[in-house]
């Protein structure tokens, strides 16, 4: 077995050195009633070559063209990015507990924090969370700590799965009131409900929201700040921030997002990359690792994990979160992507994705689709379909094209509405062909 280097002679010599006769003697501490009495019922081991064939046969979803996002979007990944990210000095290292031999990871994560802060417009960014949904749930808990309040207001146009994760996190905790803001006719959260909530800790808003609509985050910030709470601004598509105003500039106190678009690939939904930024005055309450700049004994610039008195390995039950390992290698990969694309390139791609979305939207409207809501959208949008679309959509599946996702799955009242989106991975010709076939 190529991962087990021991020869029978090695085993014999080592058992002799330990002073036991057999491996069994080393397991004598397991009480007899807890010992396994049957062999592991697992398939026969495969060779590398058999394994490859097996997995190649199971990797099936990647050749579909999906004209929708809903929290996961296809983007081109330069070959440079996975190539560099695959360097095993990065890939096979642990969390950088020994900073002198982890400066590569530490500097790269410091750079990641900086690049994400420039994206979100907030000065503190942690070293990552598991994905956007868990970043949102942790942001809600963070806002409760910061304000010493319990009630949370969440827009129903936050990604439904993210709201479900939030609910999972909050369910066992006593006295947490969650008020859901309904969508208005413009497809934005109806802020008028906010005034009815007593002492909210935070308003959780997503912009662009699940329907692709750009929220009025500045207005939301003003309203929640007036009520003494924080604005948690979420985003599922980082490219939106390449073209639109950043959450920080609009008054958000905490920004959270999914970073999968930044060079990671969709990967059937994981691993994700939870992004989290905040104002500096909230830094003692932010969960997760933080890399900080310092100097070594010779005065040279270097980096360490810092402010760890927030964390579980120091504070245990009083820690701000239980998070330990995060999505470090995804953060590193995203930093490589951001460095490769650059500020100028990111802006161009962000505009291109907006333009492609508007082109697809205009084409579908010309085919008889109707806007579900009236607000401005970025890259994704919701339309009500004319009769006949459902059948054509089924036919398109035959050539592995998925034309939109049904919104009724998450919002039963939107029963003929579909979520569409498109990115730079599809050409004008692809869109034109879709428009021809869709009705």
């Amino acid at each position: 077995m190529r991962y087990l280097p021991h020869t029978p002679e090695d085993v014999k010599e080592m058992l002799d050195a330990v002073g036991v006769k057999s491996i069994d003697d080393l397991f004598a501490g397991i009480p007899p009633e807890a010992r396994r009495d049957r062999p592991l019922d697992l398939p026969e081991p495969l060779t590398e070559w058999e394994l490859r064939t097996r997995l190649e046969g199971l990797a099936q979803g990647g050749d579909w063209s999906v004209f929708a996002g809903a929290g996961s979007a296809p983007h081109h990944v330069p070959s440079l990015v996975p190539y560099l990210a695959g360097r095993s000095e990065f890939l096979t290292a642990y969390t950088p507990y020994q900073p002198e031999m982890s400066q590569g990871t530490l500097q790269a994560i410091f750079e990641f924090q900086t690049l994400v802060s420039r994206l979100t417009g907030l000065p503190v960014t942690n070293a990552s969370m598991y994905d956007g949904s868990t970043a949102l749930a942790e942001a809600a808990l963070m806002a409760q700590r910061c304000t010493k309040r319990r009630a949370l207001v969440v827009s129903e146009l936050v990604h439904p799965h993210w709201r479900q994760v939030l609910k999972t996190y909050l369910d066992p905790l006593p006295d947490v009131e969650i008020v859901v803001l309904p969508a208005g006719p413009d497809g934005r959260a109806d802020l008028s409900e906010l005034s009815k909530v007593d002492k909210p800790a935070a308003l959780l808003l997503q912009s662009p929201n699940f329907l692709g609509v750009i929220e009025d985050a500045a207005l939301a910030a003003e309203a929640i700040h007036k009520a003494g709470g924080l604005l948690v601004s979420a985003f599922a598509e980082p490219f939106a921030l390449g073209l639109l105003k950043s959450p920080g500039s609009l008054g958000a106190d905490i920004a959270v997002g999914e970073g999968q678009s930044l060079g990671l690939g969709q990967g059937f939904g994981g691993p994700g990359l939870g992004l989290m930024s905040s104002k500096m005055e909230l830094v003692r309450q932010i969960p997760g690792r933080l890399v900080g700049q310092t100097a070594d004994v010779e005065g040279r610039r270097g980096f360490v994990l810092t402010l760890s008195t927030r964390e579980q390995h120091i504070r245990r039950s009083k820690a701000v979160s239980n998070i330990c390992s995060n999505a470090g290698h995804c953060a590193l990969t995203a930093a490589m992507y951001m460095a490769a694309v650059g500020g100028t390139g990111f802006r161009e791609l962000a505009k291109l994705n907006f333009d492609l979305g508007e082109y697809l939207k205009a084409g579908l409207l010309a085919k008889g689709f109707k806007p579900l809501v009236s607000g401005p959208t970025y890259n994704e949008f919701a339309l009500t379909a004319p009769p006949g679309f459902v059948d054509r959509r089924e036919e398109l599946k035959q050539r592995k094209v998925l034309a939109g996702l049904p919104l009724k799955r998450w919002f039963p009242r939107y029963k003929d509405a579909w979520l569409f989106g498109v990115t730079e991975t599809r050409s004008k010709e692809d869109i034109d062909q879709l428009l021809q076939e869709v009705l």
Partner: protein
Amino acid sequence: MSSEYKVPGQSGLVLAEELLWEKGRKGRSGASIPASKVPSAKLPAGLEGPGPDWPDLAEHQVARHYTRLSTWNFGVDTGTYPLGSCTMKYNPKINEELAGLPGFAKAHPLLPSEAVQGELQIIHELERFLAEIVGLEAASLQPGAGAHGELCGMLLIAAHHRHNKQKRTKVLMPDTAHGTNPASAAMCGFSEIKVPLGPKGYLEYATVEKLMNDEVAGLMVTNPNTLGLFETELVKINEMIHRRGGLVYGDGANLNAVMGRADLGKLGIDVVHYNTHKTLSTPHGGGGPGAGPVAVGKTLTPYLPGPRVVRKEDGGYEWNEDLPLSIGRMHAFHGQFRVLVRAYAYVLTMGAMLKDASELAVLNANYVKEKLKDLYDLPFPQHCMHECVFTNALQEPGKISTLDIAKRLIDLGFHPPTIYFPLVVHSAIMIEPTETESKEELDAFIAGMRQVALEARNTPDLLREAPTRTVRRRLDDVAAARRPVLTGDMK
């Protein structure tokens, strides 16, 4: 031949590298940007922002930047990495390639089931494998890392008690626990009752029995514990906890010791998490992504996160969202899927030889323990499982700290063991070699540890000043925390 030749650490050329934004110039590009063939659309007034102020670099500048940074790092592929409780075993390269297959990498998570039968099969089979390896009923792959699996497990326990209208607000917490355990319990609203360790290094029935009452939701126990010892009284303890209405959470951080050897169902564990980036060889990535699947017994199966993959009568797979008792989602989609693909590939490669992996991991730890116990203090002398815990007690009179020992090991070319953990041992040095280190590599590490012990006596300043061969020497943690600089200046 000097002893330097026995250990890998040598001096070499180190290249300096600036921060990203100290290089580059506006107008360069490191990636192809497709030209637009569609009309430029207009955003309504007031929405447009300036975009992020990121540097522009040429492709080769990005390549050099990260290649140089990588040389300042140390991974399992670089050398021996005996970080206790972290199971830094070799990460197979084929698994990286398989996780990168375009069929997985480009798969949208919301594709209809008929488009992703292969992906669903992986989820379904891996869940079965993970339940089988520990001897439990079912598993969920949704949790994103070990601590997230702990949170999931405690949410299951909380849901069970809620469903049964039991108000149980406390959790028994042995003082050998990782910090994530009390933190995970606290996130579910539980307060902790600390359980002291017995004199032999494991939990004693009488102690736990006294602390158990009808306010206690259950016990969180790491087994083997963080001293590397199997909890020998745990069967009896768990039986008592169950009798009094509690449940038992097993922290799976140390599962690498017991695959094929212990049956967690028979042991009385109701839920256990895996760290795929430990036990199942997925790379740790310098801080994740891991994956923290949980396996559960019958009691907790109905509460598992949903949706879940089920097998249909025709042999195909589909999602089941009709799970009335489920705690709900733990992840936006289906867990850290491409990490799980690596774990699946590892299990398919090893099969029942996972048992051999555990056996050799335990043999390696005991071998290192035997070869070092004359020069380092060993507080618990019995056979260990997959890791052993020393202290600096023999070096402390010469004013050598555990940190000094660790830093000198860096100069000799080894990643240090885990230090100052577990907390129940003063200035601990916790060594976990894993099964993928060969005898020669263990002998080199042992030679390094022995050299450091001798230097502590004869040339102690070598330890106090270490490391000197790395790109940076000891760094000032206190200054970093006092005036936090968490982002760089882009200008």
